[in-house]
């Protein structure tokens, strides 16, 4: 079915919520579409999806870490565990793009080896589209579409600087995958460059002593209490290629989700993060000057947090205001 076959955003939202694959593809294409006509439809779709739904039982998970740490293989291993547990998984994989041509090789899909013929897995790759370091702004609305259609949504990206911070302000649970033998992760944590993740993983446990040393260093460097409060950051060892420690990791991820729910933090935090993304999009499009014209960052964030449901529509009206002046 083609995008145009969904007559209204209500139809499209209903199909997405059922996990209908052509509808999911169409919805993601729509959210990616920068044309004015598409943007208002996208806002409608998002409002529709979030209408009376907060998806507390669904889980948005970020996996980040330096290149070569084995994130994609780890994701593949996690996906197979979740599938065995009967959970449907949507993935957003973010790859860097070339600043010169704008072109990009979206290679994570290959590294994840997830071309299963399985309706319970859906992978959309994204390029960072010239956002130096950061995640492109489409990731946030796309994650909402994915949450509507799947039990678990995984966002995977090379985490350095801004991109890692963006992931932390998008996901319910952030996992940082450290590279054994490289002291970088430890240094970043100590220096506070790295936002503290909810779960730390040393993959490639099969590297033996090197991995064990990194594990010990991370444990020592880390203040185990997460700044969010009420969560002690676990440091786990896995080997994605040997499929060791993956079940435990999936369990710990699930525990964090339960903890958030029990503490009534999940939904309120997601709402707070949404305002962050809207602010980020406006800032990218209109600069700090634009934000000032809307009354400054503080006022903007407060207004956004008060507006519960159709944030994207609110955002579009703010854009319209800025474009008019």
């Amino acid at each position, binding site marked *: *079915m*083609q995008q145009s076959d969904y007559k209204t955003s209500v139809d499209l939202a209903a199909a997405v919520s059922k996990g209908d*694959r*052509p509808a999911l*593809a169409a919805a*993601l*294409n729509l959210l*990616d*579409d*920068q*044309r004015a006509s*598409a943007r208002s439809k996208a806002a409608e779709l998002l409002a529709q999806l979030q209408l009376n739904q907060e998806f507390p039982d669904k889980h948005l998970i970020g996996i980040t870490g330096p290149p070569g740490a084995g994130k994609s293989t780890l994701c593949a291993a996690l996906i197979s565990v979740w599938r065995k547990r009967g959970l449907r998984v949507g993935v957003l994989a973010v790859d860097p*793009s*070339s600043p*010169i*041509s*704008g*072109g*990009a*090789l*979206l*290679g994570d*899909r*290959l590294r994840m*080896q997830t*071309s299963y*013929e399985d309706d319970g897995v*859906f*992978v*959309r*790759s994204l*390029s960072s*589209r010239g956002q130096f370091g950061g995640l492109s702004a489409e990731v946030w609305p796309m994650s909402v579409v994915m949450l509507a259609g799947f039990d678990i949504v995984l966002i995977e990206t090379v985490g350095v600087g801004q991109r890692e911070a963006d992931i932390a302000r998008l996901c319910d649970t952030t996992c940082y995958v450290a590279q054994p033998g490289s002291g970088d992760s430890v240094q970043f944590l100590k220096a506070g460059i790295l936002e503290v993740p909810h779960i730390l993983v040393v993959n490639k446990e099969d590297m033996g002593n090197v991995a064990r040393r990194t594990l010990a260093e991370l444990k020592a460097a880390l203040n185990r209490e997460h700044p969010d409060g009420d969560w002690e950051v676990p440091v786990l060892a896995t080997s994605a290629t040997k499929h060791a420690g993956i079940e435990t990791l999936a369990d710990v991820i699930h525990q964090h989700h339960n903890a958030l729910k029990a503490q009534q933090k999940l939904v309120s935090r997601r709402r707070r993060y949404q305002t962050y993304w809207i602010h980020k999009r406006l800032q990218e499009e209109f600069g700090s000057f634009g934000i000032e014209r809307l009354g400054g960052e503080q006022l903007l964030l407060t207004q956004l947090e008060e507006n519960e449901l159709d944030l994207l529509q609110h955002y579009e009206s703010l854009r319209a205001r800025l474009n008019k002046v």
Partner: protein
Amino acid sequence: MSQDTVKRDRPWLMRTYSGHSSAQASNALYRTNLSRGQTGLSVAFDLPTQTGYDSDHPLARGEVGKVGVPINHIGDMEALFDQIPLDQMNTSMTINATAPWLLALYVAVAERQGVDPSTLEGTTQNDVLKEYLSRGTYIYPPVPSVRLTTDLIAYTVENIPKWNPTNVCSYHLQEAGATPTQELAYALSTAIAILDAVKASGQVSEERFHDVVGRISFFVNAGIRFVEETCKLRAFGRMWEELTQQRYGVDNPKQRRFRYGVQVNSLGLTESQPENNVQRIVLEMLAVTLSKSSRARAIQLPAWNEALGLPRPWDQQWALRMQQVLALETDLLEYGDLFEGSHVVETKVQELIAGAREEMARVESQGGMVACIETGYVKSELVQSHTRRMRNIESGELQIIGVNCFQETAESPLTAGDESGIMKVDKKAEEQQIASLRSFRSNREHSKVEQALHLLRAAATDGSNIMPPSIECARAGVTTGEWSEVLREVFGEYRAPTGIDIAPLSESASEALIVVRDRVRKTGKELGRPLRLLIGKPGLDGHSNGAEQIAVKARDAGFEIVYEGIRLTPSQIARAAQEEGVHLIGLSILSGSHMELIDDIFIELKKIGATDIPVVIGGIIPEEDAKHLLQNGLKAVFTPKDMDMNSIMDAMVTIIRKAHGLELSA
């Protein structure tokens, strides 16, 4: 001086790489070739056999009997060598991932013929490492694959002492874009990886190990730059002699000799004015024959029309006659080494050796060849070299007659006529093969099969040599698919790095590329998001040069690229295209199974409701097939004739614009 008073060297082994349709048809072909003066056999297996699938496996559809002969079980192998006594034959088998299995079948057939297996002579290619870099018929991850290679070597050195257990291939590296230096470095690094693994396996005693070194042979490529190629082979000889002595302590000069067979370059053969390929092939043959001290042991030449489709028996005969004229009519074999004492040649040899040593050190410092394959280092280096070559062709710096210069031509009588100058595989061959496989399966003793597979699994798991249980499987009537499946279950399957994540070439973009890039950007703007392209290689064919080059070029032109490597099913490709929201699907198929595969892709797209995504294909597609495909909804066919990749990019943008109802002139 009359010919009979002069002492002439014995000519090299002359082979033709062949096999097609079925064991019976290939057997008839072999016997004809032998009666025409061919002196050895070179067996081409079809892709399902090479990648461990039976002919009736879904992935084998359209591939059975296409690029070689299908061998499913001992019955097929027996038919292949019917009336060819194996004790009088020297047989080369181009087989890698499933090499232990095909050798096991060969041994079992020898037993049935009443031939003592220990007297068998021949070669199994058995170099799986290059499969991850080029050609693509690997199955298992590198480490267990090398273990299978090692088992075959350890077994033959003890039990079939005249067998060449492995043919380290630099051939396919050149096809994947390797420069002569890279060819030297990576082939020798591969040999080191294999020999080190044999040593580490502990299966071979210290004295026997020198025999192993002595039995390693090479399979080399010879390109059109035949002077440099001559020097490359001299460099190979010298480096191997030195390496075997210094690294492995082999003193016997006979065991340190660089023994090699050759297939000359297919990469440089052209689809346009294909008759020019004849002189290319002859010149390339000179590179491996002129110098006595580095002359090939065995030569097989491609047919002039390889870039058009499958060669006919007459085309292969022509290739054989080229060798015979050189060996028997000319005076080449009457002389010693023609280049002895040439300063020019010596300087070039030294330069190649120095470059190769440097690259070998780089590989070694990164953990050796296996590690460099796993990380994708070597693959990326090759993709980079090939990209450079393609760019030089585009810019005209590298001249290829009939392709980027002297394109005008009179109509060729060679490609006229009903057959358009290529062989058509009998469409019934696949059906017949499947029927015969099914009847074979139902007529065997199942308990024996089960027992043999049980032994195979045990050996795969506990690390004992894989050959004895494989021979047991061959005798018991196990099939190729069953043998491979047991090992898949134990070892797992593998997807190799694609190597396309190379940095854009540093030199500034050409005028043509800038124009295309603008059009890509503009069209993306009009459609609301950047243009996305999925590049897919359906089927079992692993020749991925074309797909890789298109991917790199499209990235540089501003497309967002999804490419997951070789051997995907049509359903996987269709689903990925939908998930990724691509604007166009580009397929690459070189095995001749394009008709079936394209049909399947359209069926799958329909099934998932994604028929609005346009599909194009690149590959070796005969004109008649192209017409048919275009009528059935395919949007474009690109063949080796389309050397200008910027034009291909431009054509793809036009197709996307058309599919979305945008103005075409923009």
